[in-house]
């Protein structure tokens, strides 16, 4: 593809910071948002980003999306740029949508009957609510929809937004993911699957890892055609140089034993970027802290780099697993790593596992010079994988 896609705005709502820079500063300070086995965005005040009535009519996941997209849109100077509304798209995904709204209304229905169900139930719960509200907020008339691929949602949203620009359907796409699934039923469900850490500790790649810790939040990027961004003098925070997606076609929750699907996505993203494995200076891992993922992700790294893998670290060690928002927030971390030339650490990594023998940046942050390209991995339940190749602007 001859069309370059750059990043001109970034937004993050996370348990350790609300803005791309505040979030990345916190990562470099080795701060953790995890307490009592979850990583909630406790400091988030929806009314700092919207009116009380708007907040009341949005599920928490959409509130996160609005707040993060406001940051990204402001950073990009999008509303002042005079871009034709028809040329702005919005692709914001979520793993599970308005779960809090769903649970509250189900309970009301069971306890009090039909009349207790809110007329706002559907517009608050539906997964595309966030993308729709963001489009309304900025007056974006270009293509828009939500993406749902569980824990790979954020990666797919950004990748598909890149494709939308490459295909000429938009000059700018506001893209990312949002999740607010720290509800009693959802936590019980992940616990029942055996996916959650019993110790409540996110320690990716450590020998004692026993599952993930759930977090919440949102990540949103403003993606823009490079010549368009340069012509209007926008600040460039990096480039989405490559993207690929794949299916494991193996199991609904377990990653494929040999990592074939993950490897296909990573190799595909490199090919899409016109790059070779040796060009990659850093990998932001999917790194969930589950026994399966971290072993297989390591195996895939060996398969691609054959003993010469670049450093790889997991953002989930600090903020837990943001499900549908994970890939988007981690794309922001990857952009910041390249821009600042400092790699974020993997927290809580103490006991090496013979099956996980890469450089996980445990002592980080680590200053690095001259890295031009990084990968951001996202592997979802359903066996759906996305990989972004992120480059310096």
């Amino acid at each position, binding site marked *: 593809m001859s069309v370059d896609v750059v990043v001109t705005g970034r937004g993050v709502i996370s348990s350790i910071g609300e803005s791309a820079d505040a979030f990345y500063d916190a990562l470099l300070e080795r701060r953790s948002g995890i307490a009592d086995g979850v990583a909630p965005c406790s400091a988030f005040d929806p009314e700092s980003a919207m*009116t*009380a*009535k708007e*907040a*009341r*009519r949005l599920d928490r996941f959409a509130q996160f999306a609005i707040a993060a997209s406001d940051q990204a849109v402001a950073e990009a100077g999008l509303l002042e740029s005079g871009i034709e509304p028809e040329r702005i798209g919005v692709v914001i995904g979520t793993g599970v949508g308005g779960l809090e709204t769903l649970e509250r209304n189900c309970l009301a229905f069971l306890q009090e009957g039909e*009349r207790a169900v809110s*007329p*706002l139930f559907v*517009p608050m719960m539906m997964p595309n609510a966030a993308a729709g509200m963001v489009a309304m907020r900025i007056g974006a008339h270009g293509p828009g929809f939500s993406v749902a691929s569980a824990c790979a949602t954020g990666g797919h949203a950004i990748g598909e937004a890149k494709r939308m620009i490459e295909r000429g359907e938009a000059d700018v796409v506001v893209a990312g993911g949002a999740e607010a699934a720290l509800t009693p039923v959802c936590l019980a469900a992940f616990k029942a699957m055996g996916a959650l850490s019993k110790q409540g500790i996110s320690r990716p790649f450590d020998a004692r890892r026993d599952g993930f810790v759930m977090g919440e939040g949102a990540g949103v990027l403003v993606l823009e055609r490079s010549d368009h961004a340069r012509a209007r003098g926008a600040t460039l925070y990096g480039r989405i140089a490559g993207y690929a997606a794949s299916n494991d076609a193996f199991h609904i929750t377990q990653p494929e034993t040999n990592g074939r699907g993950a490897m296909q996505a990573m190799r595909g993203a490199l090919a899409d970027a016109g790059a070779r494995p040796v060009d990659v200076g850093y990998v932001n891992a999917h790194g969930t802290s589950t026994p399966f993922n971290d072993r297989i992700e390591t195996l895939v790294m060996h398969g691609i780099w054959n003993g010469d893998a670049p450093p790889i670290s997991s953002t989930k060690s600090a903020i837990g697993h943001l499900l549908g928002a994970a890939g988007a927030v981690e794309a922001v971390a990857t952009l910041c790593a390249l821009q600042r030339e400092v790699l974020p650490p993997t927290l809580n990594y103490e006991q090496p596992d013979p099956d996980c023998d890469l450089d996980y940046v445990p002592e980080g942050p680590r200053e690095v010079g001259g890295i031009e390209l990084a990968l951001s991995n996202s592997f979802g339940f359903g066996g759906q994988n996305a990989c972004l190749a992120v480059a310096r602007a």
Partner: protein
Amino acid sequence: MNEQEILEQVRSALAQIKVAGAETATMESSWADLDVDSLDLVEVVRILEDHFGIEIVDEKLDGVATVGDAVRLVEDISQEGATA
């Protein structure tokens, strides 16, 4: 129950759903002035139904475009109920 009491309840219903300017809404305030849409109206109607113990069928809402329209509708339905 007088008009003023019903007006207070309509204001209260608007405030419960966080409509800006609910407390100062007048009989002349329109839904458009208050940025009240069809979903908001469903909620307002439910709150009023519960408070006054009445039923407001959808057909009765045709042409109800102001706070005053809503107050008069509640008044009419309440009186119908009282005389039935």
